[in-house]
């Protein structure tokens, strides 16, 4: 389909081709893709504009930690504002629009604001618009701000249903640590609930080629079966969003695009957080350019969706933990130049990012 897809890789179903649009342009992806992975597979680099300067932005992470790829999405005559492209699973006929860009993210007229960027330094609005009166400027500023547009339509059935539940131990995060903790607690006789916000358990395990002699899929399936046999319950597509008084944990269970999520009030006696880690953005000039991604994001796009985010990459990290991740990408066909941020001059690096991105497709970073 495209040079960004890697055969055999990913949790996608290549037999089911899905058609969708982004900013009016038609693309295809596969069942199991997110909007973001499908766009990356199609080589789409600019997916958004920054809030204030309207600088071009690309997909940067693979899951909830994505700051850029935010779309208004319409499906079955239902439009939802500000959907995160990295957590919105692709469906046939989806129509995605970039937000706060006109007419499109690729060609945004409001990018003229960037030319005068020295005038819009941090907090500039506290220093002006006072004379003759703030009310003269406010309407224009309000229209420039804000991300997605909210349609005035009221969807009658967009109503959350609610569940009240109890357990002894709630495990948040279904990666290796969460699965192990949940199994151990269930084996010890606890009533255990394991929640994960992805569609399936596994967390970062899909990046591994094998787990205890099995493929990650087989290992996860085996653990899940044993866990459920011991009485454990699994909730996927479910995010724990808060711990309230008396250890009541709020859970929100995604019901699919266009349906209101379900709210769970889970009362528990023990909470185990096994929510893994995310890469932190490295600070260097121009680190927001399209093509600059987190290393974790690049690995996830490969492992879950079979998407290689670039053919030639600079991998930048300030620790040795990037090595294995980079090796996985290399094995999938990425040619990699390693840079250790502890030796690199970030100032020089920043100014050469633009050049680097001309020579390489992407720059991946890992920072602890």
């Amino acid at each position, binding site marked *: 389909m495209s040079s960004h897809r890697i055969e055999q890789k990913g949790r996608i179903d290549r037999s089911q081709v899905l058609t969708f649009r982004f900013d009016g342009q038609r693309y295809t992806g596969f069942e199991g893709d997110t909007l973001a992975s499908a766009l990356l597979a199609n080589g789409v680099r600019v997916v958004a504009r920054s809030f204030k300067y309207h600088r071009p932005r690309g997909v940067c992470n693979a899951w909830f930690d994505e700051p850029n790829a935010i779309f208004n999405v319409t499906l079955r005559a239902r439009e939802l504002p500000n959907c995160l492209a990295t957590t919105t699973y692709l469906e046939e006929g989806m129509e995605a629009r970039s937000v706060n860009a006109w007419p499109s993210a690729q060609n945004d007229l409001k990018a003229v604001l960037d030319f005068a960027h020295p005038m819009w330094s941090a907090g500039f609005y*506290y*220093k002006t618009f006072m004379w003759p009166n*703030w009310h003269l400027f406010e309407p224009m500023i309000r*229209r420039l701000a804000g*991300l997605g547009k909210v349609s*005035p339509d009221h969807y009658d059935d*967009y109503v959350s249903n609610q569940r009240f539940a109890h357990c002894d131990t709630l495990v948040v995060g279904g990666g290796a640590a969460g699965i192990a903790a949940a199994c151990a607690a269930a084996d010890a006789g606890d009533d255990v609930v394991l929640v994960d916000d992805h569609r399936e358990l596994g967390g970062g395990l899909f990046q591994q080629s094998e787990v205890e002699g099995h493929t990650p899929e087989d290992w996860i399936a085996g653990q899940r079966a044993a866990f459920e046999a011991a009485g454990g319950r699994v909730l996927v597509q479910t995010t724990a969003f808060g711990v*309230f*008084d008396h250890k009541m944990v709020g859970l929100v269970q995604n019901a699919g695009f266009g349906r209101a999520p379900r709210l769970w009030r889970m009362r528990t006696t023990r909470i185990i957080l096994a929510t893994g880690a995310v890469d932190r953005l490295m600070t260097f000039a121009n680190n927001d350019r399209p093509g600059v991604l987190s290393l974790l994001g690049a690995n996830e796009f490969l492992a879950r969706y079979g998407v290689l985010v670039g053919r030639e990459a600079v991998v930048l990290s300030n620790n040795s933990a990037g090595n294995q991740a980079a090796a996985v990408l290399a094995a999938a066909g990425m040619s990699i130049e390693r840079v250790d941020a502890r030796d690199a001059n970030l100032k020089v690096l920043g100014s050469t990012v633009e050049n680097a991105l001309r020579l390489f497709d992407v720059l991946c970073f890992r920072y602890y």
Partner: protein
Amino acid sequence: MKRYSAFRLIREAATGNQGWVPAWRTPTPKSHYDAIVIGGGGHGLATAFYLAKNHAISDVAVIEKGWLGGGNTGRNTTAIRSNYFYPESAALYDFSVKLYEGLSKTLNYNVMFSQRGMLMLTHSEPDMEMATRQFNAMRINGIDAELLTAKQVQKIEPMLNFRSDARHPIHGGVLQPRGGTGRHDAVAWGYARAASALGVDIIQNCEVQSFITEAGRCVGVETSLGPIRANVLGASVAGHSSVLAELAGFELPIISYTLQAFVSEPIKPVLNSVVLAPAFGTYASQSDKGGLVCGGGLDRVPSYAQRGNFPVQETVLSGLSEMFPALNKVKLLRHWGGIVDVTPDSSPIIGPSGVDGLFINCGWGTGGFKAIPAGGYLQAHLMATGSHHELSKPFDLSRFVSGHLIDEAASSGIPH
């Protein structure tokens, strides 16, 4: 103080933005000041500013245990209005609204006071009668007010639920056109910058731990940075007023509760005013950045924990989606709690604390952001002259002894 202006922005832009300096100085505290203000929220900073500006007392320290505006000033939903019922309150709050109207220019700092209108909904004929009563009171008190039909309400806020199957159909409303919102951080920072320029020392990360008293008079404070003395002291510490009072050896008729607020992801403009629906216990506006800002009632149990509980969140947010069904597809971005200082009559306490040399300004509870300019102005008057300004006299602590309460709880019905 180098003035802020569009011209300055252009000049700085042309020269690489190298000329900006910190908005306020960060001095080390001296051992003695003419006046000490405890609490670096809006009220404390405004007090310091007006001490310097109105009373030429600029040897002042503002002592803040955390960062400026880290209390309720940085946690509130920024509704500004003066639609109160009793003449004393109307006079006080409208004085504040008037100061707000000129504040950006007074401080040379854009506090973005946006007079987009404060709209209170009614849902029935009896509701409408109560609204008319409020409208009449406001008019008698000289405050702008308009009584609206459902059609007029719809014109202001078309997103409201006007469907025939609405659980609480909208009957009409009362509007205060001069009401609106302001930018909360800007109010704190603007006062801080202007006060600092007049010579006020702003001391952050410095906690008042006890009071120094000599011959029955309060002459200073022990802080985490050592003792600091002054001729006169004023405290504006909102939810922690009772804690401070205990240190000073007196009691306040105040109960502290958590009040929560919520902000959604940024969206293009959909709300035009500040809308309050007493039937749902929810009010909302939209910030200039695009987030829906909403709030509701107090958490049910007294607390000093700056975090919220779930039942109140559910009440407020289900109220929001009843009011604006089309907005239930919008996701929440952040929510938080602040500790508010509630008095038995829901009116503030301004005046002598009972301990010589120490004045208090507190009890603003759920609605003191709108009163920051007035609170600071009146507290400065007290500290400088030792006696009440006409406007603050009715709000003296002694009203809880004499029984002259100003019971606004019944008239407002909801915090904001």
